[in-house]
């Protein structure tokens, strides 16, 4: 198992570690080669030998003064590196538990950050525009949000900015419709239909084309928007692989979400394949959640419910049950009690991957519950219960959940900070009107 995990992670981890960028010696490099004389082909004996011989050509020894110069330069670089390391914030781990940074929210058309411990707020994107629903990148350096179009109220521009609000730019030249799920399909849970890739180099989003949802990818450096070819499948929701370059999405054959399944596709549109094939009597729900290390997927599907005699006189209905499976679709196992709540869907994994925040119809309300995936602890239910939709985000360290409960009219109420180990919660000191998003920073 360890071998599979390490080999699977290595390409991306090496990418992150290498931090590839054009080196500052680029111009000097080609000035040097330009000053070098090419050897005429006929003079090269290796011309008639395999290329390996050229690749293994021994290097001519350098003059000794060069070593001294390198040594001095190295000493200087080490010293500069130590100073830099002392002042630069430590980046968060690539995935899993991290330090708790700032919350990012929107209110009255502006974007601001909040310190969850002190309640101190800082406006980072202000102005006459109406900006909404910001979310953090996985490394906590970038904010993605939507900006309402002045000419088309039903559409938004996808915007990006640095954590301090600088560098604001639009990723789309035209405003896009359908960036929130409620606009795409009223039968599914409202959620944001856009997200940054784990390496923050790309953004994926669902938008409607002639009223039909489609899945798009755009690079954050401004390359044109690309639509992923899903065939006849209509994307309902999606989630990035936390460590790879795949996109998991729920796809349906009907605009109302009927005949839905679970699929994977590469960010470049390659290798589309089903993980859970659609069936008529077992539709996949829109709520999906990838474990932080990318090894497992939680999803929910409708399954034939109980008959009248089994549920005390209630009419037979379709149960929504949570399944957990490996990222390759194997070992698909339903969780929860068979006689338990008839509606359960996943919301988000805890940062350590051992617990799952779900929506559950306990006592016929549809509120949050934390379940222990490994079965080592009891379920945790907050002291309050929400009647309608609610939105939540784990703190990066996994100790807390920021919860925005809704009332029966669907309006957001005062947010709560919920201790993820108990039912205890406290109302927050700030007000916001957006999906909660918590910045990941380096561990202390």
């Amino acid at each position, binding site marked *: 198992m*360890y*071998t599979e*995990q*390490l*080999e699977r*992670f*290595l*390409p991306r*981890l*090496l990418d992150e*570690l*290498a931090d590839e*960028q*054009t*080196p500052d010696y*680029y111009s000097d*490099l*080609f000035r*040097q*080669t330009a000053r070098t004389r*090419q*050897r*005429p*082909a006929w003079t090269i004996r*290796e*011309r008639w030998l395999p*290329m*390996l011989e*050229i*690749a*293994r*050509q021994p*290097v001519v*020894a350098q003059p000794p003064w060069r070593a001294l110069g*390198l040594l001095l*330069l*190295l000493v200087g670089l080490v010293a500069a590196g130590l100073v830099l390391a002392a002042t630069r914030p430590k980046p968060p*781990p*690539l995935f*899993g*538990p991290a*330090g*708790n940074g700032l919350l990012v929210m929107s209110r009255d058309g502006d974007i601001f950050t909040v310190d*969850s*411990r002190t309640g101190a707020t800082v406006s980072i994107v202000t102005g006459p525009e109406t900006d909404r629903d910001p979310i953090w990148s996985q490394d906590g350096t970038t904010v993605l949000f939507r900006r309402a179009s002045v000419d088309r109220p039903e559409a938004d521009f996808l915007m990006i900015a640095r954590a301090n609000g600088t560098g604001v730019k639009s990723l789309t030249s035209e405003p896009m419709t359908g960036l929130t799920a409620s606009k795409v399909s009223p039968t599914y849970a409202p959620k944001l239909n856009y997200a940054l890739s784990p390496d923050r180099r790309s953004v994926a989003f669902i938008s409607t084309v002639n009223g039909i949802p489609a899945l798009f990818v755009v690079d954050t450096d401004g390359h044109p928007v690309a639509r992923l070819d899903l065939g006849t499948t209509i994307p309902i929701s999606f989630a990035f692989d936390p460590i790879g370059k795949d996109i998991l999405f729920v796809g349906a054959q009907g605009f109302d979400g009927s005949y839905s399944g679970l699929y994977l596709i590469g960010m470049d549109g390659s290798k589309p394949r089903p993980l859970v094939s659609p069936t008529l009597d077992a539709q996949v729900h829109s709520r999906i959640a990838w474990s932080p*290390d990318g*090894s497992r997927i939680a999803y929910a599907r409708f399954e034939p419910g109980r008959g009248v005699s089994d549920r005390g006189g209630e009419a037979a209905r379709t149960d929504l049950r949570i399944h957990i499976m490996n990222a390759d679709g194997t070992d698909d196992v339903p969780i929860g009690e068979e006689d338990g709540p008839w509606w359960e869907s996943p919301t988000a994994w805890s940062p*350590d*991957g051992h617990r799952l925040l779900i929506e559950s119809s306990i006592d016929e309300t549809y509120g949050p519950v934390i379940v222990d995936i490994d079965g080592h602890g009891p379920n945790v239910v907050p002291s309050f219960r929400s009647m309608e939709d609610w939105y939540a985000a784990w*703190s990066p*360290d*996994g*100790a807390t959940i920021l919860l925005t409960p809704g009332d029966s009219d669907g309006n957001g109420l005062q947010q709560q*900070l919920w*201790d993820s180990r108990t039912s205890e919660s*406290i*109302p*927050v000191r700030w007000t916001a009107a957006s999906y909660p998003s918590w910045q990941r920073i380096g*561990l*202390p």
Partner: protein
Amino acid sequence: MDQRNLVERAKRGDHDAFEALAGPAVSRLDAAARLILRDPELARDAVQEGFIRAWRNLPALRDPDRFDAWLRRLVVNSCLDITRRRRRRAIEVELSPLDSSAGPDIATLIADRDVLDSALRHLEPEWRAIVVMHYFLGMPLPEVAASLGIPLGTTKSRLHRSLGAMRASIAAEETHPNAPFLEGRPA
């Protein structure tokens, strides 16, 4: 203009063509060199040596379609030549069986860049080069073997041992404890 055309022009001394050919590869090869050598200045030297060799000996390249692979080999071999000149002694990590029932969650550990960086540093430069060539540059193992001038079986064996050494290094790290519940105004 296609690559074959650029290679043919560069072989005839057109340096602009060479820059158009090799320029896009600089950042990736610089990153690979930094991963192998763990030192940005040495990496710069390796890239410069590799590119100078490439320009000087380009007329000898018989198959223009192999330019990219050929350039990669030159840079990687420059990296290894630098390490041999410096005659560094690598710290070998003793491979020991991992107890899967105890210890930290490996997925969490390898999410830490410092842990991965440390695990890479524990490898001998030639072993590290194999890991970087295969997993970062995406070179198939036969090409890695040919580039290093060693048998394919040896390459596979060293790669396997490198991954084992990295796992052992990673597993030696400790986990971080959870932070306490945040204080706030009582309800």
